[in-house]
Structures are given as structure tokens and as C-alpha cells.
């Protein structure tokens, strides 16, 4: 499974939706994922890809990991996986 599909699967599970209901434009807010749900999703993503995501729930916008939409989350994870490989 590619990164995007896996991330969508994790986020859909968190939001209690079907993966096809989650699009790249979806935001955590639009999916009904609150701050605790976001922390849980990030944990699940870290476990799935064996990466560490810099994320502080106090100020999500402060880290360079952009969680504003599914697309930016996928892009951030793809970058972290590449960095890990090098």
C-alpha cells in the first residue's frame, strides 16, 4: 500500500469514516478530528511508517510538519520517510 492510501486509511479509522470519504483536501477539522484525535492519528502514522513526527499539541503550527490537510500530512510523511532512507 502506498503512503497516501495508508495515511488515508489511518485518518479514516480515526474519524470513523470510510477511506473513500477522506480526500486530500480534507482537514482534521472537516473530518471531526479534535486535538486528541490528531495526536492519536500521528501516533498511528509513526507506528505504521516507523518515523518520528515533530508535533507539539500546544502549537501545531509551530513545527515544520504541516497538519492543515490530508495532502500536507501525506507530503510531510513522504519527506520524513525519504529523510530516514538517506
Amino acid at each position, binding site marked *: 500500500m502506498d503512503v497516501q492510501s495508508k495515511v488515508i486509511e489511518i485518518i479514516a479509522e480515526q474519524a470513523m469514516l470510510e477511506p473513500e470519504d477522506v480526500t486530500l483536501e480534507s482537514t482534521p477539522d472537516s473530518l471531526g478530528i479534535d486535538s486528541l484525535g490528531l*495526536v492519536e492519528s500521528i*501516533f498511528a502514522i509513526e507506528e505504521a511508517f516507523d518515523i518520528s513526527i515533530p508535533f*507539539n*499539541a*500546544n502549537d501545531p503550527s509551530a513545527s515544520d510538519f504541516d497538519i492543515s490537510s490530508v495532502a500536507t500530512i501525506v507530503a510531510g510523511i513522504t519527506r520524513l520517510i525519504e529523510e530516514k532512507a538517506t
Partner: protein
Amino acid sequence: MTRVVITGVGTINPLGHDAQSTYAAMREGRCGIGPLDFRDVDRLSVRIGAQIRDYDAETVFNRQQLALYDRFTQFTLISARQAVAQSGLCFSGPLADRSGVVLGTSGGGLTTQDENYRAVYEEGKNRVHPFVVPKLMNNAAASHVSMEFNLRGPSFTVATACASSNHAMGQAFSMIRSGLCTAMVTGGTEAMLCFGGVKAWEGLRVMSKDACRPFSATRNGMVQGEGAGVFVFEALDHAQARGAEILAEVLGFAMTSDAADIVMPSKQGAARAIAGALADGGIARERVGYINAHGTGTAANDKTECAAVADVFGTHADKLMISSTKSMHGHLIGGTGAVELLACLMALNEGVIAPTIGYEEPDPECALDVVPNEAREAEVDVVLSNAFAFGGLNAVLALGRV
């Protein structure tokens, strides 16, 4: 109703090994937060905390005692010895039967648990020390205090996460006020600074990796601490009859539940607890000069707490002082309200308001007088101590002079 006063105080915390050294540190705005020092700290992403320094348990307790005393119990006994000694009370006869211990703790013997899980899971051992259970149980500290001082009345432990100490002291207050007890040893304790304790908190992603900066726009999370604060609460008439020195009167107490979210705080729940404590003590809000804030340094708590204070106090919110001493001693979780009550006693008795250190930049959502960075001399009449726990459980105490 019986009036309730404080006649003894004791503590060991990251700022000092007794009340006087803690007051001195708060007055200087000294920071007790630094690099954590314990096994496997290199496997943590959060590596700072407020640990108690220059403490050697073996110089205080003997081998048999240490086999039974987890760190949270050690801190409690050290604090209780100071508090009882200062009170001058000797518990025997009917007084012993009408006196007890109510302590707050969240994790209890977490270090004991951590060490023994490590032994059986990581090291594969199949035998543990026979005292693991009596050492780790949450009520161990309360029980050892009852044994050491012959307190034979109602004793128990309260666990409401970060509000444990305030809930405990509120119970002690209510038990004396209602006539059930004459004196109570009360407060709280925590020793969560071990690998498992910090690892669990790390998972929540609310911990700062550099400093605790409550109310500052630059705040980025909480920092954990450890230690205990223990007080002797006593019926006013009993204390006066024996000529005891009275440190403060406990004027009011209130507790509320947000009934909303397991981690996110609620302005309404906090405001109801603050207003409730004032109502319980029959205190006009203009009399409140200082609030020791819950002030964790997280984004969510600090703005919610300031909004709650503004709601309750109206225009007076701009005249009172509110500081978070967690910036100095860290967040002692179940023990935090007890150590923070020391800042309230210092405000009442020494006319010194402990500062919020680490304050860098105003946050419009925390636009109150947070006593930034430097202690301030001020005469205050009534002080409050806020505690708002995960789980939405809030407890606020009001103190004043007799």
C-alpha cells in the same frame, strides 16, 4: 461550623527541602527545572524536569524503611515530619482518634512499578521483592504517615490527577469544619520522574522540551516535577486553646466537574469552582489579592484559566495578581496543589507574591497581571489556589488570615 486553620507546613520539592528554602527560591524566582537524570533518559524525547536535587534517601531512612518507602512516600514523610513538628501537636488519646491523613497523589509508587516491570518484562526475572504491593499502592504514603504519628481517625488517598492535592486538602478542611475531626495531616505527593512516568506523558505531546513558560505567548507545554507538600489543618478553637502559631485560615473550598472532555479544560467548570470557593467562604471577590494559578504552560490551560478568572472577577480581574509557580518547580501532578499552597502562605504571611518565571511575551488571551519573572511585595487579604485536572475535575481553595 468549625473554623479551620493551618498550623504546620512541610515540603520537599525541586526548590527546597523545607518551607523556608522554598520561600527563598520563590522569592528569588529560581528555576528548579533542568536536565533529567535517571536510567534510560536517552530514550526519551522530553529530557527536562524538576527533580529534587541533593537528596540521599539513605541519610534519612534506614534499610528496612527504604524497602517499604517508594520515593513518593519518602517525600511525604519528610514533609509530614516538618509539618507536625511545626504544629507542636502530639497525637495521643482522643485527639489521635479524631485526627487522620488525607493525601493526594496521582501515580503513587510509580517508580516501584517501573522498576519491577523492568525486572520481570525486560530482564525476564521471575521473582520480585515481597514488598512491591505495599510499596507501590497509592495509599502507602498516607498509611505510613498515620503510623508514624499515631493518627487513628479517617485516613485515605485522593487521586484526581493534577487536582489530587486540592481535593485532598478540601476533604481535610470539610472533615474538621463539619466536626468529624479535630486535626488532619493533609497535602499531596508525587514521584513520577522515572522512565515510564515521563514516557507516558511524552505520548500526549503536551510536554515542553525546553522550559515551562506559563501565560507567555511563547509557551509550548508543561514540564514535570516531583515532591510533596504536607500541612497540619486544625480546628481554630483547638489551635487557639493551646496557643499554636496560626499560619492561615482555610476560608473556603469548592469542587466541580466539567463533564465534558477527558483532557481539554472548560472555562465554565473552572469558573464554577473559583466562584464556588468564594461563595463557600462568604468572600467578596474584591478581597482576593492573589491567585496561585493552575498555570501549566500548555496552550489550552492557560487561556482557559485566564478566561475563567476574568469571568468570575469582572473588573477586579485586572487588579488581582495571578502567578504560576510551576514555572519554577514544574508540574508535580498529584502533589502540585500542595507545593503551590506554599506560595499562598508566603503571600499571606510574608507579603511576597511568587513570580511566573520564564515569561517572555504577552499573550492577549492571558491578559492578566501574571507577576512576570520577578517576585513582588504586596499585602493581600485573601488568596486562592486553583487546580484543574485532566478528566475535568476542578478544586479551588481559599485562604486568609484569622
